[in-house]
């Protein structure tokens, strides 16, 4: 079975960590956690292709809905 890779984009670290642990418990691999749009773009530009991105709609310090 294919191991899906998931990227978490969330500006609340505790919520992000809990989500990462929950995904791990459910057997999913996470590519990591990014806290803002820039970091997310940086990861995505490094030829990393996540199968799924779990992203908070409202991220602080970013004017537009990501």
């Amino acid at each position, binding site marked *: 079975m294919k191991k899906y890779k998931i990227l978490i984009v969330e500006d609340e670290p505790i919520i992000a960590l809990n989500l990462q642990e*929950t995904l791990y418990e459910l057997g999913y691999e996470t590519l990591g956690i990014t806290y803002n749009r820039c970091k997310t773009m940086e990861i995505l530009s490094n030829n990393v292709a996540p199968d799924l991105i779990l992203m908070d709609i409202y991220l602080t310090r970013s004017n537009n809905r990501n």
Partner: protein
Amino acid sequence: MAKKFSLSFIIIGILGIIFLDKLLKIFYVNNDISQQGPFTVAILFMISTGIILYVIINHMEKVIQRIDNSYNELKRKDKSRIAPYEFSLDNSVDSIHWLSLDGKFLYVNESTCKMEGYTKEEFKDMYIEDIDPTFDRAGAKKCMLDIKNTENWRLETTHKRKDGTIYPVEVSGHAFIFEGQEYICAFARDITQRLEDKNNITKINEELQKSLAEKEMLLKEIHHRVKNNMEIISSLLNMQARRSDDINFKNAMKQSRSRIHTMALVHEFLYLGENLAYINVQDYIKKLVQDIKELYISQNTKLDVDLDLEELIFSANRCIQVGMILHELCVNSLKYAFEENRKNLLCIHINKINENIHIKIRDNGDNEIDITSLQKRDSIGLQLIHSIVDFQLHGKIDFKINKGLECNIIFPQKEEV
């Protein structure tokens, strides 16, 4: 004049008697005195005619004087009768004018003169288009016809004063017939101040709307923040529970998390909904029950939920109170009443009857329950339920066995401020 004439008649007659008689005596000294007769009769006739004329004229004069007095009295009465109306017309805030059907001014009150800057004399040769620049001759005539044919005719237009300044007016016009002639009576009101006030109010309203929108946004932000913080607490509890092997601790954390979620859901509804103060109970309970089901029920457990929820609107506080009670009772049923491989049923009915809210929660669990133990406040769950019903909802709670456990709660709909 006539009186003087008759008096002169009498005087001449008397003088005639005194002097003419003597002259005749001298003249006819040698003649027969009987020849004086006709003169004396003529003089007497003259005197009597003069007296009669004097009496008649005097009487006529008195009659004429009386008629004159009566006429003056009537005039005075008439004047005093119409004086209040004239006063009202002249002191009206509105410009009142009568026009002919071709738009010529026939009467204007004082206000018209003050408003337009013309005298009453000047108005006599003026037409409506002389003060309303929006009309030409044909337009003015058409307007008069419109007034004639329209009941409660109204128009917002502009008037031009003698000095050339233009100001807004609201005009109402009525057609009327007086002594067979058709007239237009129009009332014009200067609405400069009204329009200024309207603009100011619109401006203030816009500012208030902007301010309100900002406050709403801030309030939504706060609810969002509160919900987020609750989620952080919930995540912390979850992470803590994950690191423990104690099953009791894990369950306690799970229950605490779902209690926090019950409250967080209210804040989520507040910032996602259109109303920042009130929540649709139906939507909230549906979501709450769904979330509780997902958290506590395993995939193998079949559960039917019978929801009969009346369309009700609760405040955020009331929603949290009801949500907490429902959470405790639902979790109790899910934990103790329901099992795998059986048809589980959970009924939640919320109705309004006679200004009271009736909540019924029933499961179809078949394990034995000691009703009296539910009246006590041993567990946190029961403590929560009884405290909220007693102190916050000011209601009553009753447990009974009805093919499972049934709980009935009644509380007044009106919230205490």
